[in-house]
């Protein structure tokens, strides 16, 4: 009976894994095949495997620049988001002050606006402040759009930290600043890791703001670089797949590094 149950479970897991990982494996196979080969047979194995496509994408298609831009914009944005978001969340969760909930509501309510509504005015503002077509401008926009969600996730976690801990730290002689860095933040690490992963993946793949706010080749991020393989009349499917695989590597690295913390963050409070 136990064997049957185990087998059923394994079959279900195998089906789900192939469903979830299938597109990834397919893109991975296509990244090693030329567009002509792909058109001939969409699902064939890469035989021979064209590893040289990765070096072509990296060197001949300016991927090194796109990649560096993406790293720069996303890492700086995630860093600011994490520090500012955690500070704001700690403040909103921990301190009683007038309009605390009003500020929280205003911050959080901004996520109800779809990007299409704000993007034209954002474009105008960035042009006005000389931030259009700059990595700094895009970084600031990324921070602004992700900050409410970051605060939302972190605030609910910070609010669960017992107030006695902060009182104990105060009695130990720590200032509010030190309490944040040495008590609140280390305890909230699982939640912080969750926001790091979510923000990193979301911003790494972000296309809409980037395509509107960046036009210069030197400032393009990876999603825009991949778009360049989409021609008006013809799509270089093979190179798109290669570009996707290059783009996906940092996401996998970040996820692998933080995943354990992510799970802790998502299940925090589930058990006592």
């Amino acid at each position: 009976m136990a064997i049957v149950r185990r087998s059923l479970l394994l079959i279900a897991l195998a089906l789900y894994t192939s469903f979830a990982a299938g597109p990834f494996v397919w893109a991975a196979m296509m990244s090693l095949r030329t567009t002509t080969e792909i058109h001939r047979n969409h699902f064939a194995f890469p035989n021979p495997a064209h590893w040289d496509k990765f070096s072509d994408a990296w060197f001949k298609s300016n991927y090194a620049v796109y990649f560096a831009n993406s790293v720069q914009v996303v890492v700086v944005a995630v860093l600011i988001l994490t520090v500012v978001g955690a500070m704001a969340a700690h403040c909103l969760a921990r301190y009683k002050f007038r309009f605390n909930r009003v500020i929280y509501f205003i911050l959080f309510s901004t996520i109800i606006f779809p990007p299409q509504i704000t993007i034209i005015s954002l474009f105008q503002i960035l042009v006005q402040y000389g931030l259009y077509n700059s990595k700094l401008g895009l970084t600031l926009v990324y921070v602004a759009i992700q900050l409410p969600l970051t605060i939302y996730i972190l605030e609910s976690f910070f609010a669960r930290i017992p107030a006695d801990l902060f009182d104990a730290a105060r009695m130990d002689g720590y200032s509010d600043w030190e309490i944040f860095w040495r008590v609140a933040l280390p305890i909230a690490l699982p939640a912080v890791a969750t926001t790091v992963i979510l923000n990193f993946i979301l911003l790494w793949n972000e296309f809409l703001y980037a395509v509107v706010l960046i036009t210069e080749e030197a400032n393009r991020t990876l999603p825009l670089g991949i778009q360049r393989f989409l021609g008006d009349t013809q799509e270089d499917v093979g190179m798109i797949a290669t570009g996707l695989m290059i783009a996906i590597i940092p996401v996998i690295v970040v996820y692998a590094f933080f995943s354990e913390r992510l799970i802790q963050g998502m299940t925090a409070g589930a058990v006592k």
Partner: protein
Amino acid sequence: MAEVTLSKIVKKYDEVEAVRGIDLDISDHEFVVLVGPSGCGKSTTLRMIAGLEDITGGEILIGGDIVNDVPPKDRDIAMVFQNYALYPHMTVAENMSFGLRLKRFPKAEIKKRVDEAARILDITELLERKPKALSGGQRQRVAMGRAIVRNPKVFLFDEPLSNLDAKLRVQMRTEIKKVHQKVRTTTVYVTHDQVEAMTLADRVVVMNHGLIEQVGPPNELYHSPRTRFVAGFIGSPAMNFIPARIEQNGSGLAIKLNDKLAFPVPEARKTRYEKYAGKNDMLLGLRPEHITEAHGHMEPGKIPFDANLEVTEPMGMETLVYFPLNGTQICGRVNPKAGAQDGAPMQLAADLNNMHLIDAASGRVL
């Protein structure tokens, strides 16, 4: 080590007065327990001593110095919290030394103090563990260890045992008492559990509605309560209050409970209660242990009466009996071999030598 003085302490939250002008002198080395129901202001008082709450009015002195505006860290006090407040990301040793590290104590001194506190609390083998790997009792010990290593002038405990199960609570109560006997630091301890208050304190401070009802050693509070609140709060099961009237009965006095039942007041109490003769709205206060089974030969002051038992609760060493009297549910304590049974009549005896007479209107014990 130091004495703590509270002088006319007031705490207001907007318009709500949580603490309403209390005065209290706590001597050096003394173990004082603040006890009272939820919302009586005991925790607020403790937090004001700690410096975690601002004081609306009055003065707090620690070791003779006014500390109203001194931040918690500079008051030289240590506090043990209800939910232990251990830093979950630090080991036991790190938790205990967190405050000392900030004050830049030499490493050797920190280690010496942590080891000494761990030895006192018997947690030496737990020093490298994280709080999540500890049981409730062990966490409580670590929380105490964190207070001990600082060698403060005053220890503050905020309901430290309320998260523990009943058995562990009794065990930890003894531990706290032992620790106090060893370190002799002035201690202010807050609890809502009167048993904890009675067993731990040199003096108990009973609080109600932001005011101190009575201060005194546990036995004094138990045997000579000054108000109905204290009489009812201290002791478990609580004191019985029976509506009564005091009347002249020939040359003596009697406590009339109803048309059928009147208890003569013992000679020793006559002069004390004489002036209240003819007064209505009185309450006869009798602790359950002063309502026992009746014997053939009873000492003076013990008066037999008949009761219809509603419920009996065998406790092993005694049986609690509950019966109605004058519209009130009364609790008595009888010998388990006295044959008390649910729903059966029983002759009981009220020991009026230990009676209290209470003015129902003012709540004052007369």
